[in-house]
C-alpha cells in the first residue's frame, strides 16, 4: 500500500479545504517540489542545503508526503551537524540522503498524479448530478 508514503487523511482534509482547486494545489506542489529538488542538487554549501531541506520539509508536511518530510528532516539535521563540525565523512551520508529523496519523489509523483485524476473525475461526477 501507499500508506508509508502518503497520509491519506491529510489529502482528504486538503481536498475539503481546496474544493475545486485541489487538483491545482497538487500540480503546484509537484512543480514546487521539482524546483526544490534541483535546489538540493545545486546547493553550494551545507547552510543553503539545510535551508532548502527545511522549506521542503514544511511543504511536504502540509501535503501529507510523510516519508519525504522525514527524509528532508534528516537531511536538515545532517546539514546542521555538518555546519557545526564539518566532518568529511558525513558528505557521503548527505549524497546518499539526497538520492533517497530523489527516489522517494519518484515514488510519490505518480501517486499525486493519480490522486489528481481521481479528484477531477470526482468533481466531474459531482457536477453531472
Amino acid at each position, binding site marked *: 500500500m501507499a500508506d508509508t508514503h502518503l497520509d491519506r487523511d491529510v489529502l482528504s482534509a486538503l481536498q475539503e479545504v481546496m474544493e475545486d482547486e485541489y487538483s491545482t*494545489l497538487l500540480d503546484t506542489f509537484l512543480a514546487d517540489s521539482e524546483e526544490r529538488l534541483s535546489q538540493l542538487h545545486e546547493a553550494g554549501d551545507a547552510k543553503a542545503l539545510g535551508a532548502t531541506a527545511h522549506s521542503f520539509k514544511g*511543504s511536504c508536511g*502540509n501535503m501529507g508526503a510523510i516519508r519525504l518530510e522525514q527524509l528532508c528532516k534528516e537531511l536538515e539535521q545532517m546539514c546542521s551537524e555538518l555546519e557545526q563540525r564539518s566532518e568529511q565523512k558525513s558528505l557521503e551520508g548527505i549524497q546518499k540522503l539526497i538520492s533517497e529523496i530523489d527516489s522517494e519523489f519518484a515514488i510519490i509523483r505518480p501517486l499525486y498524479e493519480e490522486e489528481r485524476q481521481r479528484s477531477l473525475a470526482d468533481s466531474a461526477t459531482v457536477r453531472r448530478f
Partner: protein
Amino acid sequence: MTNVQPLEPLTILIAEDSAADRMLLSSIVRRQGHEVLTAANGAEAVEAFRFQRPQLVLMDAMMPVMDGFEAARQIKALAGETLVPIIFLTSLTESEALARCLEAGGDDFLAKPYNQVILAAKIKAMDRLRRLQATVLEQRDQIARHHDYLLNEQRVAKAVFDKVAHSGCLNAPNIRYLQSPYALFNGDLLLAAFTPAGDMHVLLGDFTGHGLPAAVGAMPLAEVFYGMTAKGYGLSETLREMNAKLKRILPVDMFCCATLLCLSFQRRSVEVWNGGMPDGYLHSIASGERTPLTARHLPLGVLSPQTFDDRTEVFPMAVGDRVFLLSDGVIDTCDANEQLFGVERLQRVFAANRRPDQLFEEIEQALRDFRGEARDDVSMVEVSLLEAAQLSPPALVYSDSGQSCPLDWSVSFEFRAATLKRFNPLPYLLQLLLEVHGLRAQSGALYSVLAELYSNALEHGVLGLDSSLKRDASGFTRYYQQRNARLDELQDGYVRVHLQVAPKGEGGCLTIRVEDSGKGFDVDRVMARPLDGARLSGRGVSLIRQLSRNANWSDDGRSARVEFFWEALA
C-alpha cells in the same frame, strides 16, 4: 468543514515562498471569510504592507531575498502605533529560532503542517488584541483631546479671572508673593487692594477641592473683596458679606479657608481674621520674634450669617515688620514616605533665615529637599509695613460728569448703641461725601480723618477705652480685647456725625463734627503733645491734625470739628 464568518472580515497578508503552502494557506484563510494578499518573499511582503495596509500578517520565517524576521521588523516599524499582529509560520522547533521570531516583532507562531482550527483561533485572538489596541489608542487620543480642551478652558477662565484678581494691588512694593500659575485651579486665591484711607486689605484663600469647582467660588469672593474694600468697608463687614455669599452659592461640602489682613500704614497695625488657614506669622524685625496668626474661626461659607463670627485681632507693627501667610500646600507637602513637611520644619527654615528677602526661596528649597519635586498648590505672600508716604494708593476713578455735584447742604446722623455694635457707617458717609467732586482729590485724607474721628468717638468716647493701653504690644492686644468685650455689652450711648458742605468762592468747604456720649478728655493736655507719629498711642489726634484743617475739640473733648477746603476745579 463549515464556512466560519468572522464579525468583520480582515485583510490578511500571507508571506510564504513555497507556492503550494501559499496556495493552501490562502484557501484556508479565504474560507474563514478574510481577504487575502500574498507575497513570495520578505521584500514583497513589506511592499504589500506599505501599499495595502493589511490588518494581520502570516509570515514564513525562512524566505529568499528577505527573510521573515527582517520583513517583520520593517512592517512593525511601518505600522507605528497601530497593532498589526504578525503570526510566524514555521516548522522551526529550536527555541532559539522561535525566540528570534518574537524579537523581530512576531506576536505568535503557527507550526507546519497547518491546522485550520488552530489557525482560525489564532487569527481571532490576534484580531481581538488588534481591536483592543485600536480602542486604547482611540481612547488615549480622546483623553488627550479632552485634556487639551480642559487646559484651554482653564486658560480662558484664568485670563478672565486674572483681570478681576489683578485689578488689585498685588504689585505694590510691599507685597511679595509666590503662586503657581494655575494655583487658582488648586483653589488658592490671593487678593490685595487699598482702602480709600490708604490701608491695605490682603486675602489669602484656599477653596476646598481642585479644578474648576475650586475656582468658581473665587470670582464672587474677589468681587466682594474688591467692591467692599474700595468702598471703605472694614474687615468685619467684608467678611460677613463674603461668608454670606459663599454660604448661599456653594454646595455644603465646599467652603473657603481664608486669612484676611488689614494693614494700616498710618496706625502701624495689622488687623487679622484667620478662618481655617495655617498659622500666618507676624515677624517683628526688631525683636526677631514671629507671632503666629492662628486660625480662630471656621472657614468662609460654613456658618450661617447669624452664627458667623467676624471678630478680628489687631497687632501693632513697626516699619519694616512683615506678615507672612501661606497655604496648606506648604506644610502638607508629603515626602515619599507620606511624612508631612509640617510646621516644625517651616519654623526651622524661619530660624535659619538670615536675609528676609530670601525667605520664599529658602522655603521652596526646603520643600524640594524634602520631597524631591515642587507641588503646584503652594502659595505664599509676605506683606511688609512701609512708611505711609512710601505707598501711593491708586487714584479712584469716577464715571460721572460732575454736573450734578451737590454744593450746599448739611446732614446729621445719630448712631445709637444697637447700631454701633455692628454697623459701620463710614463707607456710606464717604460715598455721600465723594459726590462732591472737589473732595475726591483728598478722599484718602478725608476717609482717614473720618475713620479716626469715628473710632475715637466710639472707642474712647462711648466705650471709654484708655488709649494709653496701646503703649506696648501686649497692651495693644488687651485694648482690642476690651474693645470687643465692651462693644458686645453696650446698652446705650451714641455717636453723632454732622456734615456740612458750603460753596466758598470758586471752591468749597466741608465741616465735619463728630460728637459722642462719652466722658470726654483733657483737650489742653492732649493738644500740648508734639505732633509725633512714632508712638502707638495717641496717634489718632495727631493724624487728624496733620490731615485736616482747623481741627479743634470742644465740650471737654466730646465734640471734634475739622474742615476740608477745595479750590476751583480745573
